[in-house]
């Protein structure tokens, strides 16, 4: 089994950190993992990608990819700008979107290579509720990890929370872990 995950967000939103936490949590779960940011100049606000791979065996391949099993969208505005069309979602793929409940998600906004399941969580609301804000931006990356865990079943919620605390340290980590937990329970599958 090899799962390829792409996180689509804006520069500064914490997509690369999220990818790293996915890898750490997967390793805690006894899996092999890789995580890396988009290889290029850092550009706050620009649409950017971060990547992760999870496998039950040694991961041999390297580098960025455009065909995925899981697509995580950190900013729903990117769906409207059609950046989502740059990524091909494999058959049986899962798409986890940060969006408010009333927003409409259309499958035409995505490049689907087969069937895909859509999941939605209001990560912005969860971040604001927990006062997770930095430089004016709600920190949606940790809630998205909770939603990722529930939607994909690839990594355990407990491992995500542990990896979050390890990454951010005790004090900040605990608040983020609460956001992870809330998103895990609030994420819903779209039908």
């Amino acid at each position, binding site marked *: 089994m090899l799962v390829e995950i792409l996180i689509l967000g804006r520069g500064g939103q914490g997509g690369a950190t999220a*990818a*790293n936490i996915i*890898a*750490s949590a997967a*390793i805690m779960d006894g899996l*092999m*993992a*890789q*995580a*890396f*940011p988009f*290889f*290029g*100049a850092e550009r706050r606000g620009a649409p950017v990608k971060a990547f992760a791979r999870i496998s039950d065996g040694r*991961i*041999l*391949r*390297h*580098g*960025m990819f455009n065909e995925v099993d899981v697509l995580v969208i950190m900013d729903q505005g990117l769906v409207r700008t059609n950046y989502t069309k740059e990524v091909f979602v494999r058959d049986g793929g899962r798409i986890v979107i940060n969006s408010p409940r009333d927003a409409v998600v259309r499958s035409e906004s995505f490049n689907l290579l087969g069937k895909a399941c859509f999941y939605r969580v209001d990560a912005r609301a969860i971040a604001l509720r927990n006062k997770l804000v930095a430089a004016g931006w709600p920190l949606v990356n940790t809630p998205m990890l909770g939603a990722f865990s529930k939607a994909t079943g690839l990594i355990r919620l407990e491992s995500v929370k542990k990896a979050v605390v390890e990454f951010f340290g005790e004090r900040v980590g605990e608040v983020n872990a609460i956001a992870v937990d809330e998103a895990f329970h609030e994420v819903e599958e779209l039908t």
Partner: protein
Amino acid sequence: MVLKSLTGNHAVALAVKMARVNVVAAYPITPQTTIVEKLAEYIDGGELDAVMIRVESEHSALAAAYGSALAGARAFTATSSHGLLYMYEWVNWVSRARVPLVMAVVTRTMGPPWNIWTDHSDYYEQRDTGWIQGFAMDAQEAFDMTLQAFKISEDPRVFLPAMVGLDAFILSHTSMPVEVPEQELVDEWLGARTQGFVIDGSEALIHGALSPPEYTEGFIEDVGKAMEEAVEVVREVDHSFGRTFGRSHGGLVELYKCSDAKYHIVLMGAWAGDAMEAVDALREQGYSIGVVRVRYTRPFPGEELYKALSSSKGVIVVERGVSFGSMGPVFLDLAGNMLKYSRKLPYMRNVIAGVGGVNVTYKDFEYIAKETINYLESGEEPSVIAWYHAR
């Protein structure tokens, strides 16, 4: 032993910390920067008792590391691309001075045009400098190779500086699982620093003075002899590392599915993993092929490669760099070194790919291998040197 998720660069930094270096001197350059940033954090947090020398250039970075090493410090620096080129004078000086130290080289394409992605041209250009040159494939190997580099460099049979190469981004900035050993075990295995002489004021020593040609020739010849002896030292060190930490990497080369292979891909660096994945797929399609991963380019593993490749039906050397007006450096070394053992060489081909940081995937390796094998099996010989443009 704990399993940690570390980027290639952070794996190098952790190994340097665990080698208990005394001095780090470096100047930031992408994609190397996160190595010394991490080391600065270790020093700042009291986890590493070392001096961080902040310098104004790479030229001074290696000079400062060298000066510290002369005085008995275990010293480390790291750089990439233009930074490495800027310290070039010192790169040559340190090896001829026979001073052990370790430098990480995070490979990055040289400009112009300006480029931050990996190819191996900066690393290749160091091949005549007299440094031990290793090249890692993954974060675990970057960790292990860095620790081993100190041991090899400080061996009295060698006393040469050692370089640890790793690819920009696809290794340097990619998190992977790394088994981290206990500090006590590392201390015991690595031991205290050794070097051929110390300039610390305790004794009057002249070093680097004008020397007549006949003497100079001898000193330079001995750099070559040290390289020859280093072949056995690299093997020994990897072996003893395996006994202590439970992990060896095959010495100077790693052979992947080669025992029964008729065809061989030869290459070095992170993309060797992608080539291995291609070999897995090709074997399922009935192709008899393996990967020979070059772990050290200096000393060049002539003997290992001759043994692995002498009866090959086709050798494809895939390289992320080329010597303009000639061919790929590993190909040239391979062809020359094979002649030491036999006048009869197998069919060998040189494919230049991934230059400028172009992403080369397992699908590309599948294509390259199939193209070559299909030519050879139909009785034709493809061009000996070819550029492959992955897109």
